[in-house]
């Protein structure tokens, strides 16, 4: 499961998985020695000599495939560009303390730039401010900070746009049919969740609170939770014809529930992410479309920007949309899309 910006997992999980993640991390480090495509190069010191550019990458966790992709790409790309890379991560999603510590370590290491998928906490923001005050370029990846200008620049999917694309596509599939929508959200109040949700409604052409929205449920982006929620919602609203999902695991859960009731012909499911599994699901016809995002792009553009700034060039600024693309094998006029063959070539995870 993955969804950037979501406290994926949610309630009760933290104290158990915190420890888990810690030991899993130790396990992974131990495994790195023999693992060719180790996700993290934890010691960038070797590459660091006078004049070389050094970059730090801090992800929310090191287990989520989305972040694993980021780290793999960062490692490869940094090597390619002759840049020193130190990859760190929180122990679990929402591990503010872990991110702050990672920031402090990178600051004392004296890196030129830091890329972070930030937890939005004052603690993390404080550490970011500290880094910037020492002339370190800080770039937010995947998730914007709040306020956005707490970092130099943000390289991320425009989640509102991604949501809008999903909504527009699903609505277009419905055509003249009266919409009856169920929304499977991630976590209540999450930044990304809100952007995608609101974007979807705009693209779909409904206002929040419209009676055509038959139900909404938080799924933590978890397949099992999403399936259960969908089953229960279908119990009340078996006449649904459109489903919004926060990410692909949620879409899989929704599909399973809908399939069990034999409603697949009647319902159009949309999703967001572009993980390879999700694209495959679209290819298999489980849901109509997914909106792909590009974590590799975020990392590459981020490293480029830091290298440029370190070389005396202009520091990056503002929000840089790394793009989002509708993936479907059922293209609809008026909505730009790529097919799943293209999707499988460009997916992450």
């Amino acid at each position, binding site marked *: 499961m993955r969804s950037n910006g979501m406290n994926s997992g949610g309630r009760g999980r933290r104290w158990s*998985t915190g420890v888990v993640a810690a030991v899993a991390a130790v396990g992974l480090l131990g495994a790195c020695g023999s693992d060719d495509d180790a996700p993290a190069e934890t010691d960038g010191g070797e590459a660091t000599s006078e004049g070389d550019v050094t970059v730090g990458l801090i992800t929310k966790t090191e287990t989520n495939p989305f972040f694993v992709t980021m780290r793999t790409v960062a490692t490869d790309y940094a090597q390619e560009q002759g840049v020193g890379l130190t990859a760190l991560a929180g122990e679990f999603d929402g591990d503010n303390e872990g991110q702050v510590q990672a920031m402090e370590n990178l600051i004392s290491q004296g890196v030129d730039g830091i890329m972070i998928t930030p937890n939005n906490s004052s603690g993390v923001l404080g550490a970011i401010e500290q880094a910037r005050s020492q002339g370190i370029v800080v770039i937010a990846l995947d998730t914007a900070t709040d306020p956005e200008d707490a970092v130099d620049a943000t390289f991320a999917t425009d989640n509102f746009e991604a949501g809008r694309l999903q909504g527009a596509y699903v609505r277009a599939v419905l055509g003249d049919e009266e919409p009856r929508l169920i929304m499977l959200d991630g976590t209540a109040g999450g930044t990304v969740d809100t952007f995608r949700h609101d974007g979807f409604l705009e693209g779909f052409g409904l206002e929040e609170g419209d009676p055509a929205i038959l139900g909404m449920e938080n799924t933590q982006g978890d397949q099992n939770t999403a399936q259960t*929620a969908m089953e*229960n919602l279908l119990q*009340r609203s078996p006449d649904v014809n459109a489903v919004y999902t926060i990410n692909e695991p949620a879409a899989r859960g929704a599909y399973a529930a809908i399939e069990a009731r034999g409603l697949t012909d009647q319902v159009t499911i949309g999703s967001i992410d572009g993980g390879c599994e999700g694209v495959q699901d679209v290819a298999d016809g489980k849901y109509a479309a997914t909106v792909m995002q590009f974590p590799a792009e975020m990392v590459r553009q981020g490293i480029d920007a830091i290298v440029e700034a370190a070389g005396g060039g202009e520091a990056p600024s503002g929000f840089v949309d790394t793009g989002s693309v509708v993936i479907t094998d059922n293209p609809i006029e008026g909505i730009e899309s790529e097919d799943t063959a293209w999707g499988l070539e460009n997916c992450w995870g």
Partner: protein
Amino acid sequence: MSESTAAAAARPPGRSAADPPPGGAAPPASERRQALGRALRNPLVGPLAALLVAVVLFTLMTDTFATAGNASLILQQSIVIGTLALGQTLIILTAGIDLANGAIAVLGTIVMAKFVFEGGNPLTALLLGLTITVVLGAISGLLVTRLGLPPFIVTLGMLTVVYAIARLYSESRSYSVSEPLLRFWGQGTTLGGVRITWGTLLLLVVFTVFWFALARTSWGRHVYAVGNAPEAARLVGIKVNRTILSVYVAAGALYGLAAWQALGRIPNADPNAYQTANLDSITAVVIGGTSLFGGRGSVVGTLIGALIVGVLRSGLTQAGIDNLYQDLATGVLVIVAVSLDQASRRRAAR
């Protein structure tokens, strides 16, 4: 399971009553009062009442709740946590706790799915998965009994280790399953328009089996005795460590079954799945009236506990109420259940 010796032969040597006491038979009125007292003292009364209240409430609040289809759905949704909670019940009855059950089951799903994914025989995959969960249960049990470590610490460690193994072995990706054997429990039949999965039937069968084992066999009595008064159990000749170990092994087997069930429900083995299953299972056990201090409780209570959680989730969703209220209600029930347990134990200790 231990104690193969001293079966019915242990009947005490008959002795003529030297001093037959008066009043062997109580008058019927007091007997009825006793029966009523016993019924009210039954720790299932509370959970059952909570379940009934919830069902009645949601029946009144929605048109869609009180249907056979919905009941079937709630059962299906309760299968995995219910099976895990059954194993958890066994362990909690011995005054232990298992934080690793979800992780063990997840590893089971991954072993089964990845083995098939790599071209293995599904039956072998299944047996491999089941074996691994049993072995992991046995390891917990051995650490608890041989090294005398507290179950909380042992299973916290196991949780961490097993989770890491699951991630490493799965290479942090998920494996979907199409083998009919592994998906078997998600299949089913339709009875009068209601879908009944084999998994639902299995859940009921497994609960019945363990109800019988706990309530009607000598092994069951030993499990209760070991949890309630380990020293007394040892003194009367119960092999305490062997009983505890048997419980962890049985729980491991149940986690394997839960893994199989999970693939029936979601044919996708994901190392990130069921992250809160350990706590969810403890929740079901506690709401079901089983004491965290061991020696008191029942699997029937646990089934009711799991159903209460399922009913709340289903009912609140259908009533259009934010599912955070489900967490809220569940949390309140946990606290109420633990308070009742404390109160009853304090009464007993007087």
